[in-house]
């Protein structure tokens, strides 16, 4: 530490301190003499305290170190500064003076005495793991990822970039646990930076792992698939295998699009999502394989055998959302993913001849790009698209395929445009005005916008009980808690029911949408502290099924408010939607919702059964409302799951984590058991 700052206690400070203890007129000489001595003592104490820090084997000097140093000098230690991680000094300036002070709050003793006892902290425990096995660090969660993300990036750089003697390479600390170093290879020979040879040979174990994972991901066993996807999403140290996985996905999509194998396409997209969720992986270099595959799943003319009945819309939605996430995470000035994708989408929309399904994909893709894109590209097109929908739905030629497509497009536009319109258009909403502005879609849009506004204004949340009978309701009132912005809107679109009974395809595909573009996809929400009503916290996951007549899919929203109302740590809510389709293309699907609430408080796993089995009643509904009500004091919110209703009778799994707080499942009710998935 070579900075030559020599802070001194000034005579003025001494005078102020003297005044505070009741010595009014301290002579200047005395003050300066005292100041000098105080400086000396303070420095001496600090130097002693550093010794205690070193012996405490810490990097941070603590208040206890000062106390110990004072004791060493036979001075009574300062009481009242214990147990603080750090002392929050505040800074104030005024009148040309700068002041750092420690804000001491008055504490009501009664409050402390009457406060409920804090939870007993967990006992210290000792846990063993293998840091290395014969000199090789195993890739287990206890160890750091074998190659940090930055290094993967560095290794992935094209040779031309690395060969340049850039300052960046020089600054890379030599102690980084790179592969080259572990083997003792000097990566720098005579000043020339050599790119370490990266072997892309997989070990036998990795090959086995690859086989297992890929088989499980596209196999028929749903539980194995879930495990495999979990492994892809969480395991560190998969970076060596990403090229294989991305090729697998790419090839898989190519083959299965030709064969119109919807289920497999869905599985592959879920693999992509799992890989994207893995925070230790650096996907950027493999986007050239992944993006075409995902784009295919959004835009392909035909994705399934029977376009009239199979729910390929959900796949398009899911893939579009994936693409949206990719754009947010990986788009840069160099690759311009976002603008290139947007261009692709708009080109399709401009092409009058494009297939309806492709159009739907393009619209969905644009809609997932974020509010700005919706505002600038989708809303101006509303009128045009509305006309198209109108001609298809009311036109002379009745084609069920086209009509379904039109319904989907309409639903999509309404769903995504309404919230944006509600934000950018000043109220009040006038049906006629909308009609002139947006044509055919105007009135419906107006209704949606009104609803969106209501949601935004609604301060108090009421948990609506959703029963099986409520399926007849045209539109379920969806709830959204305003919290700056809707930080997590998890939309699950149910398969719209057409008059003809459908063969089921995986109907629900959900993906979380990150609250901010910067967030990695796995941590979608960060509850903003200080919401208007921090006392009530609800999480509502509702998946409703639109009725036949309107085919309006309602959005299901998960909003969490004030879950971390007072904690500064802003525990992030991790809501993970894992949708799972099972069996073959005709098998029932069972999308599951997995929500992890802040700081590992609780997990909510909801299985939403698929709707509209061919064999089951036409009243098969897909409804699952989980109301998680958490009433928290501070950051230690106690959560309890108030009620779970699962309409179609399959299990609504509620896994509650056994973490510190007593999360309780107070009632799990299953209503109106009507159908079982028949796979």
């Amino acid at each position, binding site marked *: 530490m070579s900075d*030559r700052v020599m802070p001194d206690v000034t005579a003025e400070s001494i005078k102020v301190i003297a005044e505070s203890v009741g010595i009014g007129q301290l002579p200047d000489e005395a003050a300066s003499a005292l100041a000098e001595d105080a400086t000396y003592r303070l420095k*001496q104490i600090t130097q002693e305290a550093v010794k205690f820090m070193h*012996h*405490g*084997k810490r990097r941070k000097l603590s208040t206890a170190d000062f106390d110990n140093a004072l004791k060493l000098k036979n001075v009574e230690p300062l009481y009242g500064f214990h147990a603080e991680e750090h002392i929050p000094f505040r800074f104030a300036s005024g009148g040309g003076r700068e002041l750092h002070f420690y804000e001491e709050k008055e504490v009501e003793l009664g409050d402390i005495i009457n406060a409920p006892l804090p939870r007993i902290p967990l006992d*210290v425990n000792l846990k063993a*793991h293998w840091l290395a*096995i014969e*000199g090789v660090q195993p890739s287990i969660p206890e160890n750091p990822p074998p190659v940090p993300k930055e290094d993967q990036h560095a290794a992935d750089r094209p040779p031309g970039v690395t060969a340049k003697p850039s300052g960046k390479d020089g600054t890379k600390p030599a102690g980084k646990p790179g592969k080259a170093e572990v083997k003792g290879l000097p990566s720098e020979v005579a000043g020339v930076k050599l790119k370490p040879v990266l072997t892309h040979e997989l070990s036998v174990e990795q090959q086995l792992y690859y086989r297992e994972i890929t088989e499980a991901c596209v196999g028929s066993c749903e539980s194995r698939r879930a495990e495999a996807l979990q492994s892809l999403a969480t395991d560190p140290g998969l970076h060596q295998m990403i090229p294989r996985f991305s090729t697998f996905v790419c090839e898989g999509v190519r083959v299965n699009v030709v064969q119109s194998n919807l289920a497999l396409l869905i599985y592959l997209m879920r693999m992509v999502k799992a890989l994207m969720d893995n925070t230790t992986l650096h996907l950027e270099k493999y986007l050239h394989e992944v993006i075409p595959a995902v784009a295919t799943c959004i835009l392909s003319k035909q994705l399934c055998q029977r376009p009239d009945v199979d729910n390929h819309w959900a796949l398009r939605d899911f893939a579009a959302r994936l693409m949206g996430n990719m754009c947010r995470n990986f788009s840069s000035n160099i690759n311009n993913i976002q603008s290139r994708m947007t261009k692709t989408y708009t080109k399709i929309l401009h092409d009058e001849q494009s297939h309806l399904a492709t159009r739907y994909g393009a619209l969905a893709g644009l809609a997932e790009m974020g509010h700005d894109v919706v505002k600038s590209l989708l809303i101006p097109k509303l009128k045009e698209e509305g006309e198209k929908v109108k001609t298809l739905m009311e036109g002379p030629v009745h084609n069920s395929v086209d009509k379904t497509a039109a319904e989907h497009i309409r639903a999509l536009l309404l769903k995504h445009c309404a919230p944006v319109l509600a934000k950018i258009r000043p109220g009040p909403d006038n049906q006629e005005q909308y009609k002139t502005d947006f044509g055919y879609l105007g009135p419906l849009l107006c209704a949606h916008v009104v609803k969106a506004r209501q949601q935004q204004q609604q301060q108090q949340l009421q948990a609506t009980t959703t029963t099986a009978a409520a399926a007849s309701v045209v539109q379920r009132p969806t709830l959204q808690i305003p919290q700056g912005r809707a930080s997590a809107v998890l939309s699950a679109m149910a398969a719209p029911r057409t008059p003809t009974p459908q063969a089921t395809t995986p109907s629900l595909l959900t993906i979380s949408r990150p609250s901010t573009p910067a967030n990695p996809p796995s941590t979608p929400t960060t509850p903003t502290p200080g919401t208007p009503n921090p006392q009530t916290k609800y999480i509502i996951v509702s998946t409703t099924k639109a009725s036949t007549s309107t085919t309006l899919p309602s959005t299901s929203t998960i909003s969490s408010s004030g879950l971390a109302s007072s904690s500064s740590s802003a525990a992030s809510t991790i809501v993970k939607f894992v949708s799972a389709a099972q069996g073959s293309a005709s098998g029932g699907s069972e999308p599951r919702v997995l929500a992890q609430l802040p700081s590992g408080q609780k997990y909510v796993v909801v299985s939403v059964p698929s709707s509209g089995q061919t064999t089951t009643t036409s009243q098969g509904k897909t409804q699952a409302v989980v109301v998680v009500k958490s009433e928290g004091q501070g950051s230690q919110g106690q959560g309890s799951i108030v009620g779970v209703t699962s309409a179609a009778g399959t299990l609504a799994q509620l896994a509650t984590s056994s973490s510190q707080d007593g999360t309780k499942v107070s009632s799990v009710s299953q209503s109106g058991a009507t159908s079982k998935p028949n796979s």
Partner: protein
Amino acid sequence: MDQQTLAAVLQFLKNNKLKDAEAALRREAKLPDGSGDSGGSSRVATSGEVSSVLSAYESEGDLARYCEYYSSLSSFIESSLDAHKHELGCLLYPVFIHMYLQLVYNRHEKEAQKFFNRFSVEQEDWHQEDLRTLSTVKTREQMEVNDLMDTFRSSKFVLRMSRDSYQSLRRYLKQNEHRELLSILQDHLFIDVFDGVPRNREQVQATSGAMMGEARRDANKVKVLYGLPKEPDINVPLDDDDEGGDGEDKPKKKKQKKDLLLNKNKKADPNAPPPSRIPLPELKDADKLEKVLSWKEGLKRVPLGRENLPSICFYTLANAYQNVSAVGISEDSSLLAAGFEDSNVRVWSLSPQRLRTMRGASELDQLDKEADDIVERMMDEKTAADSWLLHGHTGPVYSTSFSPDREQLLTSSEDGTVRLWSLHTYSNLVVYKGHNYPVWDVQFSPTGYYFVSAGHDRVARLWGTDQFQPIRMFVGHYSDVTCVQYHPNSNYVATGSSDRTVRLWDVLNGNCVRVMTGHKAAVHTLAWSPDGRYLASAGVDKNVLLWDIAYGRLLAEMKGHTDPVYSLCFSREGSLLASGGIDNTVKVWDVQKVFEEIAGSDDLTSLDRASLVEVGSLLLGSFPTKATPVLKLHFSHRNLLLGCGRYQHN
């Protein structure tokens, strides 16, 4: 003790009317009974000893010209031959310090400040810590109570330089008659002149850094008996193999190995101390059994080397709300003790054997004392637990050490005490008071009974478990003694200090037999190689240094850690060194390479000049943890590396 100090002590005793003590001292020192020369000794002022030493700073010279003198010296050094430059460069720091202190002492605060600000930047990086301490001393009054000041005024700063360099310095001093400079050199510096080639920059830097300069050449001349004594014959049957019925050829193989080991042990080491040099506790039957068992474990040892890196099993302490300040692992790797900053100590079992306490006295009385498994029977099965909490200290616990028989545990703490705990009853047996200041480290001798402690009072003490008073005091460090390590043959104790030296003490007479300089910041951990010849040390300066105790010279410097190193351990056969610190990594170093290198070269030629063995990078592997500082490393008998630390979230 020189005559002057002796006289001062005598005067002190006399003044305080301690006649017996005075007489005894005179007898010891073979001084004539001194009623006569009391007048002579009066020149050493007793109460005014401090002031007399301080008064050495009083100077009639023109203090204002110090800046000039210093720049003149500095430019002389700069312009001297490259060969001498680096050796002479060492002069600057002590001269700077003493000039500053003279200025302060003579109440030239302003000049002192100016002088300090102008030249302190030029000093080497590793001096900055001391300079910061010094910079707080701004008045004469403060000088008298500053520890570092004390050190500087009472001891001479040691410099070593070749005769050629010294001659050139003398020529300079003759030319420029700077009386003040000359007096500083005479009063406060000790220049150790040797014949030979002047050292180059690397060589000078390698050994500089200690608070009071380098070690004097004669400080490391005493022969150190670093060898290991012959293993005592143990007449415990060896053939009670548990897995005896495994096959025909297996026992045969073992036999051979056994013979090898036996031969090795039987060979008398010429450097080993005679077994009777230090009275050691006699081996009990249990100890013998222990030895055999550990030796048997050793047979299953995995040979380690640069091709075979160790497996590391890491123990993470989770949910520790208070910081963990010390971790100890028993020799046989079955127990782990952690000391916390909230003054608790917790003992865990690392083996499947859970921890039990002894039965009550009445129950014990009923036991058959002749039974073979009496120890087993004494234990109360009902009390088995995974860990035990030991309360007793009143400050952070800075060190823990298990006795070799695993029946006792020693802990040292900020409260100035060392405590001995029974691991049969999990209660405190003895409190050793004596340090009065924080005790930074404590360690049992490899044979048990003795232990050594070190603390803030700059003294390392040797104790016997059954005595309240220390048996030996090892005095000589200029600052806190931060760590101690018993030599494997129990005859020596190595200490590391925040004066940035490592010292070796003879247990027999309490003499300091080695002083090793080279660290640039406080030393916090030491480790002996299994053969007792090499010592590794590391600390706040992030470097691991390897020393050859036979000659007290620096062998290698291992750089790579990015934060202070707090733990070192040699593998059981001594071929690898593992280090860990609060940069959350375990690093493994190839020390075998160094040993091979020096085995080839002739030791005696390079004696005078500590030259680093040029072998390139010794780092074999670096194993980062997620967020756990490595506070303790330990190789098990089978060469499995155990690490321990507390997980630090966020």
